[in-house]
């Protein structure tokens, strides 16, 4: 990364750290949720944007992560931070296992299979044989963590920082992954499946791994989300959630790490705006926003930003050369 990019990043991080002290607790809570979604969207983007496998069911992995955290905290008394690694491992395995049969599926067929997963998971969560753990339709209520070591910040702010730290860690890991061999293999498989295979890339392994890692990210996000909301119930994880995730990465920008952040801000804050525009049909406004993005900004916000930056720097260069 260039020095300019690093400085930009540092500024953004500083602003993010200052945020909870500048805005109300409620806004801090909203931004915590936005960070959670950013991690989830990064996971989905790894799979769909970088590896070309469409998933319409990522809400399911989010739910699995959320329930992991809730069950571990409620039934086994685990501290909230300890639930994250466990949720990560569970979802990694779950994603990998789902990715195996999905190997044979392409494009729309994979979309369909994941669509089915997303739609049927809430029903599985309500299954009465599993009620002992999942709380069935009643769901599970958990407690919000307080700031540790007697730090002079309140619970909302602490949770924000905790989520921010986890988000930064996950983003750095993803960036590293994508820069390396596996990342290049993922993109190669997306662009030229057969050529990649011919060149010796173990496509089966990479694709299943991509599924696993993607699920892991979204599962960690789910766990964080459960801790922030303090409640999990089957109704929280219906099919609409998977749709919202998909919308997030398309709006944010496919195959882009910063896209996850733009997308998260979109899905967290735009529905509220839509609600204010039209009480009668808020989802219709959301849908229209969506269409607008697809038609006018198909590379997503990240793509638009990239183009704007490129144009600005070209203008600056021209001005330099013409003097």
């Amino acid at each position, binding site marked *: 990364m260039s020095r300019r990019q690093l400085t930009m990043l540092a500024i953004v991080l500083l602003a993010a750290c200052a945020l909870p002290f500048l805005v109300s*607790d*409620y*806004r801090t809570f909203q931004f915590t949720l936005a960070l959670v979604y950013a991690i989830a969207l990064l996971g989905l983007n790894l799979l769909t944007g970088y590896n070309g496998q469409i998933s319409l069911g990522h809400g399911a992995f989010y739910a699995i992560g959320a329930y992991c955290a809730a069950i571990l905290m409620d039934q086994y008394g685990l501290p909230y931070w300890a639930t994250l690694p466990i949720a990560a491992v569970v979802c990694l395995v779950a994603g990998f296992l789902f990715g195996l049969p999905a190997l044979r599926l392409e494009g729309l067929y994979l979309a369909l299979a994941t669509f089915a997963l997303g739609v049927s998971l809430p029903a599985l969560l309500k299954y009465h044989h599993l009620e002992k753990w999942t709380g069935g339709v009643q769901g599970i209520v958990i407690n919000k963590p307080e700031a540790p070591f007697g730090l002079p910040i309140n619970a909302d702010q602490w949770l924000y920082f905790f989520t921010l730290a986890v988000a930064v860690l996950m983003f750095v890991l993803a960036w590293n992954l994508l820069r390396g061999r596996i990342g290049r293999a993922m993109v190669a498989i997306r662009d030229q499946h057969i050529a990649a295979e011919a060149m010796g890339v173990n496509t089966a392994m990479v694709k299943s791994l991509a599924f696993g890692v993607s699920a892991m990210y979204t599962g960690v996000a789910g766990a964080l989300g459960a801790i922030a*909301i303090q409640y999990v*119930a089957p*109704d929280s994880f219906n099919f*609409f959630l998977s749709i919202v995730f998909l919308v997030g990465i398309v709006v944010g920008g496919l195959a882009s790490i910063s896209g996850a952040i733009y997308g998260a801000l979109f899905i967290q804050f735009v529905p509220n705006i839509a609600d204010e525009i039209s009480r009668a049909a808020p989802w219709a406004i959301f849908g229209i926003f969506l269409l607008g993005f697809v038609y006018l900004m198909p590379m997503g916000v990240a793509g638009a930003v990239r183009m704007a930056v490129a144009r600005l720097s070209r203008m600056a260069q021209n001005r330099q050369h013409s003097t």
Partner: protein
Amino acid sequence: MKLIAIAALLAAALASPAALAQKKYDPGATDKIIKIGNTNPYSGPASAYGTIGKTIGAYWKMVNEKGGINGRMVDWVSYDDGYSPPKTVEMARKLVEQDRVLLLFQTLGTPPNTAIHKYMNSKKVPQSFVATGATKWNDARNFPWTMGWQPNYQTEGRIYAEHILKNNPKAKIGVLYQNDDYGKDYLKGFKDGLGDKAASMIVKEVSYEVTDPTVDSQIVQLQASGADTFFNITTPKFAAQAIRKAHDTGWKPMHYLNNVSTSIAGVLKPAGLEKSVGVISTQYYKDPNDDQWKNDPAVLEWKAFMKKYYPEGNVADNANIYAYAVAQTMHQVLKQAGDNLTRANVMKQAASLQGYRPEGLLPGIRINTGANDYAPIESEQLIRFDGQQWERFGPIIGK
């Protein structure tokens, strides 16, 4: 000595009216307005219930046009939560922390209300007259800021159980229930009412999801089990399907229907009026499409209200007369609070309703609350459909 005494008395006399006239406000209340917050599912799978929020909004519009409550206008702030608990949490926090409402009123749905239950009580903001029949809202000791309104589901389930035990103790019962908290709460009350005979009397229990297109398969299963009594715990769309299919397959059980789905225009007519004859249920308010209330002043008042303030609302939807009655109750509470519009006082007034009657309730049913009684309506009456009307029979059950 005497002078000091007289001076003291004078001072006391002068001070008291001033103390009485003192206004007390919590956030959301001023001399001019009372801000009331709400979340309702205006979108998503439960959006049919969103009409409740709209009716209540229209009610406040009417109240404001008539001068408000004790001279204050009602500012009704209602957000969509899509029946999704995380969204409810976010919207509730927005209402309390950003919009700074005085209280939350008629938030809808058991999972959404469960999600904000602890939060509302820790913030000491009233979560009043919630729109769900779950039993857990009547817990004044642990959750003093949360109160329900409608008769809870378990009580109703018990009423049916008692009726069966009295009239048909050898009944073989089949149950159809929606696989969520609403359905399971009814089932629990029903089984509790049957006591230790539950296991032997209930020969088949089947559930359905709201994503199922029809419940025809479930009805067929119940019929095949040999049941002669049917406890039908379904929401309006599925209730209509169930009534119709139960009739069409020739299975003619003793049919108990939960009171969420008793609307003549919204359920029985689509199912087929002739197919609904003999169905038993309970009720606590007047069905506006029942001919027996054709000239009832409360129903006429409600119809006029709908026409003027909520013309796009559906007068065939019982939820709208329910919403009117619960809004009237909130109106009464706020009126009683007078100028002392603190949250604590609002809860206190809500917990001091003795014999209050919104006239949309059935005759004989009244609202009673107390410091340890957070269940406003606890009485219902059994009703039976005769093909045209819901005929009330038996006594008013409950207190």
